């Protein structure tokens, strides 16, 4: 059953068409990679899916709600994390969890339970009282991800979550993504690391506002006769 359904999505800014008739769907529990060159329209589409911006035309259903007029319902059911978004450096780890749990209206018992669950998974329980600013970047990114799923959303949107992170932490991050997907949370992710695209169940590649390729990484490599996704990406971008 698709958890995200996009039909003929068009978004215009004046005469500029940022999203040109997008149609795709994402299944529940899937890891979906959303790729494209800078300026291809990824950010615009992502904002629409998160209910932050309304489509010019077309139908976008996320977690069973229409983003055009039920964006509040959508927002309650999704989580969001980006490289630019970070938690509060001057709050402790626990205070950050408490704050963001509170934003989603979780009762304090639930926040406590989720926090110890998520910190336990990261092995960071002993850092609970530390100020976030004192932790290494890789840990912060993992914590930011945990905060994004504290309210057990249906979908979590990750916007370049591993940018600038060291190679080991980057892989540990993807293992957390796998675990999350195994628990049934859908993961919608953008990245500039083409090897990470291979970790996704399916990927789509955008160019000039359109989705020009959408399939499993394996099928795309066959279709474009390429050794890896980076080659697929270059072939598409240069055509």
């Amino acid at each position, binding site marked *: 059953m698709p958890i995200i359904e996009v039909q003929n999505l068009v978004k215009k800014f004046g005469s500029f068409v940022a999203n040109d008739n997008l149609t795709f769907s994402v299944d529940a529990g899937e890891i979906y990679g959303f790729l*494209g060159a*800078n*300026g291809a329209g990824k950010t615009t589409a992502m904002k629409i899916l998160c209910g932050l911006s309304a489509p010019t035309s077309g139908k976008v259903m996320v977690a069973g709600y229409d983003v055009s007029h039920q964006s509040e319902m959508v927002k309650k059911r999704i989580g969001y994390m980006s490289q630019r978004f970070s938690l509060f450096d001057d709050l402790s780890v626990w205070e950050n969890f408490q704050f963001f749990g509170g934003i989603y209206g979780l009762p304090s018992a639930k926040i406590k339970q989720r926090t110890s669950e998520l910190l336990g998974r990261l092995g960071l329980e002993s850092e609970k009282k530390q100020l976030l600013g004192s932790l*290494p970047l890789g840990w912060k990114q993992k914590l930011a991800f945990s905060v994004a799923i504290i309210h057990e959303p249906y979908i979590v949107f990750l916007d370049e979550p591993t940018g*600038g992170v060291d190679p080991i*932490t980057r892989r540990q991050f993807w293992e957390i993504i796998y675990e999350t997907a195994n628990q049934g949370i859908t993961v919608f992710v953008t990245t500039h690391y*083409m090897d990470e695209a291979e970790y996704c169940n399916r990927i789509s590649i955008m160019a000039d506002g359109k989705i020009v390729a959408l399939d499993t990484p394996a099928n795309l490599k066959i279709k474009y006769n390429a050794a*890896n996704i980076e080659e697929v990406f*270059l072939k598409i971008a240069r055509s």
Partner: protein
Amino acid sequence: MPTNSSIIACNITKRYGEKLALDAISFDVQKGELFGFIGPDGAGKTSLFRIITTLLIPDNGSITVEGLDTVKDYVKLRKILGYMPGKFSLYQDLTVEENLRFFAGIFKTTPEANYNLVKDIYSQIEPFKNRKAGKLSGGMKQKLALSCALIHKPEVLILDEPTTGVDAVSRIEFWEMLAKLRANGITIVVSTPYMDEASRCDRVALIQNGSIMDIATPEGIRSNYKRDLWAVKAYDIYRLLIDLRKFKSTWTAFPFGENIHLSLKNENTNPSEIVAYLQAAGHQNVQVSKIEPSVEDCFMELMQGVKSE
């Protein structure tokens, strides 16, 4: 004393309060070399580059660039440096052409005077010369920032993470531009968090937590990798990873695209042993092949070494 060194750094240490950003690092860059600092955010790349460009004073150690000390001779040094800070520092509300003209102006030159040097790069964005820099795409901003850093014909070009946040196509184009500049004899020092870009450099320094883990040519780095490395593939890659971690002779197992790179504790493990173990665990379509390590494998191996010390 080699006369063909462009940059010589000796025991550079920099602290921010308690935090040690650079821990006594030394290196030298040859004239005309394309030298890369490869490492994640927070490794100390930006601090190092700010020391090279005279913006910061090291707590200890010294750097000379073209024989000029970064602390004492900063006035002279600033005339021969080209610097592109992280985040493409451009004036967003000025047009492409106005930005170029302004940056030429502060070095008391004009875009026309050194047009030859930037022609290849600037001609790609010239059709948009009346567009505001803030309205450019990431790749175009990057080209404009490079043009601005080059417009006064610097002898040494310092580029701090020029490819961060830029898509794969623009990244490749950017490295092609750097290769051309290198052919013009400019010394280029560049930093990047993307390990795969290491192969584009003459020599690289792998940097992590303020220390240089290794300096060599990309081939040299790879040849320093002492373990056997296997690429393992199977139908369910996540379960494959978990099972490989449990394998008795596994040293590390990391996902790499569609494969898992497996390094082993003891050298004499037969690949059929791995296959047998995985098939027993119920994996289908198991493929195991021996591979040459990439710079990223080497980086992770070095990180593991630092951690286990």
